[in-house]
């Protein structure tokens, strides 16, 4: 059994990694323990509002890199620890058996060298899959500059891999993470994407990242605007086939003259997630949401901001509007749109019907008519104040990620919203 103190050190070093989803893998239990749950599963929630789905650990926090923002950086004076593969495997299986976790999220500081670290991570996951016969979810971090063959080997045993982009531009990377480069992070991501596509096309036996790849960026440590971040996000979804891009509000855990001394507002991170959802599930293009050199407004959500800029398109009649337009109404999400579509086949919907159907009208009533009736505010400046006031109350408790909701996935071009295999994607929030 791993020592409590070691577990504490390795967990505290890993807790700033945002990704914790366990969806996307349908791995079966083949005579051992564990299986994949394609919709993912949250096993607990911590007082910071985040879910605990995976056992999130570093293999080692003893790093040779010196990234300015990182609490495990070489020059930072913190207790160091390194776990053995056996310790990680036995901890995972015993936690899993008790239903504490859905699987393992294994990352590491760059210990000794990138190749040695990657080799240790791959050895651990192989051990878990073979000796311990564990078929639950495994998320493996890629180590920048590690040998591609080692990375590909890891991809055969993990359900998901991720390389953290960390910062949204090459310039910021050079400044704050001098040992990392855009090339060292993006090229393995693209290579894995190609290998995965080939694996699927050839219908080979076994697994190769069934749950795909994700990445993470720190927001607020460098000067990039939301418009720039979202453009990068959109291109990652399109070119690298990522399932998710995570954003992490910068929090000053180490002092450095190159870093801001105050944390980035959590609300900014929340707005980025909202915009990210609009890109993936609501048919928006980044050009419609924000200009490259601008930030998203903080006082209202990005969908409201878009609607206020396009008031000539509203109000829309809920009994006639196509799905694509319903999804663009502020306050109407994928689940509500689905309910409206289903119910209006049988009767002309009124506001009373919508209330009974639990369609939230706080924002939507300003942008819709129901059976010809309008119940909102028409005057645009007054409307903006109303929406901002309503949002302020919610923002006080701004979640860092959006909650689960039903309906479908989309590519930026099409919205096959009710395709059968799309429902899962929307429940998990992943493409």
């Amino acid at each position: 059994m791993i020592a409590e103190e070691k577990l504490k050190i390795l967990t505290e070093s890993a807790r700033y990694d945002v990704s914790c989803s366990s969806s996307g893998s349908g791995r079966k239990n083949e005579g051992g323990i564990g299986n994949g749950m394609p919709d993912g599963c949250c096993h607990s929630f911590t007082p910071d509002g985040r879910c605990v789905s995976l056992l999130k650990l570093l293999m080692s926090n003893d790093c040779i890199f010196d990234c300015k923002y990182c609490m495990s950086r070489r020059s930072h004076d913190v207790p160091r620890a390194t776990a053995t593969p056996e310790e990680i495997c036995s901890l995972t299986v015993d936690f899993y058996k008790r239903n504490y976790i859905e699987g393992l999220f294994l990352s590491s500081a760059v210990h000794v060298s990138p190749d040695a670290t990657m080799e240790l991570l791959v050895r651990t996951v192989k051990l878990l899959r073979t000796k311990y016969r564990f078929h639950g979810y495994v998320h493996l971090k890629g180590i920048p500059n590690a040998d591609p063959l080692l990375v590909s080997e890891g991809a055969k045993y993990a359900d998901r891999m991720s390389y953290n982009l960390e910062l949204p531009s090459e310039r910021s990377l050079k400044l704050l993470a001098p040992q990392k480069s855009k090339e060292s992070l993006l090229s393995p991501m693209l290579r894995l994407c190609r290998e995965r596509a080939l694996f699927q096309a050839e219908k080979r036996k076994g697994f190769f990242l069934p749950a795909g790849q994700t990445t993470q960026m720190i927001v607020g440590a460098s000067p990039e605007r939301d418009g720039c971040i979202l453009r990068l996000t959109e291109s990652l979804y399109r070119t690298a086939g990522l399932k998710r891009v995570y954003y992490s509000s910068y929090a000053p855990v180490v002092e450095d003259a190159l870093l801001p001394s105050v944390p980035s507002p959590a609300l900014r991170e929340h707005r980025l997630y909202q915009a990210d959802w609009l890109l993936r599930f609501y048919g928006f293009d980044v050009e419609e949401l924000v200009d490259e050199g601008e930030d998203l407004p903080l006082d209202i959500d990005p969908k409201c901001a878009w609607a206020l800029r396009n008031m000539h398109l509203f109000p829309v009649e809920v009994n006639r509007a196509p799905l694509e337009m319903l999804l663009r109404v502020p306050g109407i999400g994928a689940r509500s749109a689905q309910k409206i579509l289903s119910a209006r086949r049988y009767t002309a919907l009124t506001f009373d019907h919508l209330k009974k159907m639990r369609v939230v009208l706080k924002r939507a009533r300003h942008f819709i008519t129901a059976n010809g009736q309008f119940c909102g505010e028409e005057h645009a400046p007054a409307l903006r104040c109303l929406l901002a006031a309503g949002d302020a109350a919610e923002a006080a408790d701004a979640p860092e990620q959006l909650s689960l909701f039903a309906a479908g996935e989309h590519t930026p071009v099409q919205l096959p919203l009710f395709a059968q295999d799309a429902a899962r994607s929307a429940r998990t929030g992943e493409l």
Partner: protein
Amino acid sequence: MIYFFDGSKEAFLTAFLLAYRDGEALLTAGEKQLSIGQKSVFVRADPAMAAKCERRLLELDKRCMDDLSFLLRSGEGMRGQTAFLYLRLIAQRGRPVRGELAEDAVSEATECIRRIKLEAHRLKGFVRFLECASGALYAPVSPVNDVCDLLLPHFRGRLGHIPFVLHDVPRGKAAVWDGAHAFLAPLQHAEIVLSSDEAGWQALWRRYYNAVTLPSRARLKQMKGYMPVRYWKFLPEDPAAAIGDLPAADASANAGGASANAECAAGRALHAPSDAPSDAPSDTLPVKGRAPSPQAARDALPPPHGSPRPPAAPAHP
């Protein structure tokens, strides 16, 4: 007229036929205070009537019995009435009404089914197993709705050959997987012997839970929204204590935390090491932390492979 029934599907369908033409019918499986002059009847299940009713309803909507099986699991007082109004609408219209959400009966039934499925989904995460000395797993649960057996296929799939018991404490029943058979059985009180490592793994888990929390970000409302306090009772990580540790916990949240603390007493006692005395009243505990006799433990746990113990009720395959 109020139609009381015992909560079973057969009794419900019998009551459905009796009440169908009664404009003021109210079906309930729970308790109901009668007003002066109000008539009531206790409906016994009539297999012939129930079968006839089921056949006819299935002709009109082949998925309606699936909906009914969910609706009758509801822990809400009006579960019989929600199902009655929904099925009566199907019978009146002569076709499926699923999706006609502007109808009160349909939207209420849909919402009720959604809540039940949500609870089953949540419990897949919030169930916590205790490892017994025999290697079998035991988990006490206290769901609002009767969803215990819905969880069986999920855990059977992932735990494979490991026997386990999901004990619905308030309903006094258990969903059991003995490594070869899945079945439901009545279980009022279980006594188990915990494995020698159990306390150690729980301590590690608590340490992990506390270490993974970002202390600078207190979002208790969000936490309780995703993981309602009613599910905290059997969690070894003890979220109520973790909230108490947070420096910036707000006043209202602390108040919630305090009540949760009291509620958690029983749960914590469950997670006590096997040699520690329990500090909670024994009548609230389905399991005592103190080591019971090996025979009692064997009785409480699923039988070994090939055991002749007959299934008490068929469970999901």
